[in-house]
Every structure is written in structure tokens, then in C-alpha cells.
């Protein structure tokens, strides 16, 4: 549990659970704890700022911490916060949690028992693939096993597909096997399969920055 007067960085929200674990957290934080408000717990680390600088490394650390929580057996669902949510102290944070209770409840319900998995199909260097056919194969294999999908940014000309899937925990093995089939049946295509992640692409919660100071 955090010192009541420490600045707190928030990674995400879960159903009320006591967690205290060692992590490589943002800005050198070494532990992850929780701050409770009624039926929700905020996943927090103690930091020395309420205005954390956004760097690639810090964002990756934020993701890694959430990923460690997603893998825990005692946590069924994580609602991730975007990078940069830091609060003056536990009291301030609880005030914000009180105001956002309904949004947290809805988000937790929306992604209950699910994780996010990502898949990218990348054209080989010679570009000799049928992109439409590959996208179709991906949809046929993976969409039925997921509770939701998003089409993500095609940031490279070589990207055929970049999708995120919301997958129930008990469908993960079947989903893994389906991805393996896509890989086996399309040997020329490079496949990047990532996760499990907290479901960033399936919840959209912004808690007021003005409340953080």
C-alpha cells in the first residue's frame, strides 16, 4: 500500500484486489500496489512527479507492468489507463475514482474476462502475395474466436493487416491454434503475434487531467 502523501502513477483499474508486487515500473518505481475505492482498485506505483514525461521507454514500461498484471491468476480483467496518469496523493486519486466509478464499471463489464491479442501480417520483401485473400483468411480464422476486433494503423506499405482482438481467456488456446494455422497455411507471409495485453483498443477512458493536481 502506498504512503498517503506520495505521488501516485496509475496504470489501470481492476476489480478490488490487493496487489503488492515487484515490478520495473515507470520512472524507476520498483513496486506495484493498489489504491481502493469501493469495488475498484487502481494499480499504482509511487513516483516523484505528477507530470510524467512521455518517452518511448516509459510507455513501454507502462505496457509491461499491465502485462504482468494481466498474467496474474487473481486478476480477471484489467482496464488500462493511457500513459501519464499521475496524482498528487491517494486522496486525490480516490476522488477521481469516485467520479469515474460508473465509467470503470462499464469498462470492466465490456472487457470482462478478456485480454487483447495483436496480429500483424507482413508482406515478404518480394511482395508476391494476395493481400485481400490473406485478410479474408485472417478474418475467417480469428473473428469467430474473438469478442471484438479492431483494424489498426497500416503504418508500413508492407503491412497487409494489423488487427487487435479481444479474446476471452478460455478461448486463448483455440485462438493460438488458429493463428498457427494462418502461419502454416501462408508460409511466405511474416506473422507477428503479440500479447496478451490489457485491452487498450476496446476501452476508452479518460480521467480529467485537471483532477490530477
Amino acid at each position, binding site marked *: 500500500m502506498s504512503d498517503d502523501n506520495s505521488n501516485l502513477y496509475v496504470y489501470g483499474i481492476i476489480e478490488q484486489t490487493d496487489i503488492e508486487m515487484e515490478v520495473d515500473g515507470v520512472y524507476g518505481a520498483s513496486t506495484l500496489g493498489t489504491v481502493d475505492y469501493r469495488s475498484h482498485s487502481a494499480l499504482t506505483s509511487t513516483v516523484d512527479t505528477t507530470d510524467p514525461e512521455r518517452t518511448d521507454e516509459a510507455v513501454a514500461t507502462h505496457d509491461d507492468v499491465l502485462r504482468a498484471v494481466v498474467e496474474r491468476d487473481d486478476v480477471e480483467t484489467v482496464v488500462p489507463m493511457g500513459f501519464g496518469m499521475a496524482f498528487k496523493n491517494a486522496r486525490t486519486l480516490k476522488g477521481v475514482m469516485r467520479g469515474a466509478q460508473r465509467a470503470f464499471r462499464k469498462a470492466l463489464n465490456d472487457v470482462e474476462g478478456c485480454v487483447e491479442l495483436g496480429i500483424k501480417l507482413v508482406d515478404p520483401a518480394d511482395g508476391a502475395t494476395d493481400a485481400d485473400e490473406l485478410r479474408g483468411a485472417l478474418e475467417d480464422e480469428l473473428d469467430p474466436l474473438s469478442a471484438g476486433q479492431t483494424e489498426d*494503423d497500416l503504418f*508500413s506499405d*508492407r503491412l497487409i493487416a494489423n488487427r487487435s482482438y479481444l479474446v476471452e481467456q478460455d478461448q486463448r488456446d483455440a485462438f493460438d491454434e488458429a493463428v498457427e494455422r494462418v502461419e502454416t497455411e501462408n508460409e511466405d507471409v*511474416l506473422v*507477428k503475434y503479440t500479447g496478451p495485453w490489457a485491452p487498450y483498443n476496446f476501452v476508452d477512458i479518460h480521467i480529467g487531467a485537471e483532477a490530477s493536481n
Partner: protein
Amino acid sequence: MILVDDLLLKPFVSLLDILHAMVLDELHDMGAIRDEIKENQLLYELGERPESEYERKKGRLEAELQVAEEVHEKLISGNIEVQ
């Protein structure tokens, strides 16, 4: 339309200034640079790009991004002038 709108809104800004700002913005396209950074990372992780090439390209792109961010800041603040 941006050009016409800008001229209407800022009649005392010269056409040359506006064109210059647009060219700078185009040359230092932060979105395109960020996309290249992501592509570089992806191809490295997939084993398509050797580490040495990945590191070299990453360094160049990060430097380009930093310049682009500075140019963008100056464009927003109106501190870039045509000499």
C-alpha cells in the same frame, strides 16, 4: 483551401511565408517519420532487418523526428520567417 483561408485570415502574412511554412511542414512530416520508426522496429523484430541496420536507421529517424518536432513547434508559434 488552406492557402486561401490563411490569406483571408492573415492578410498581412506574405504568400511566400505561407508557402515556406507549408513546405517545411511537408518536409518534416512527423507522422511519416513515426511510421518509419514503427516499420523499422517491426522488421527488426521479425528478423528481416539486421541489428546494425536497425540501430543505424533508428538513430537517424529519431534525430529526424526531433528536428521535425522543433520545426513544428516553431511553425505553430509563428517563429519561422523567410529570410
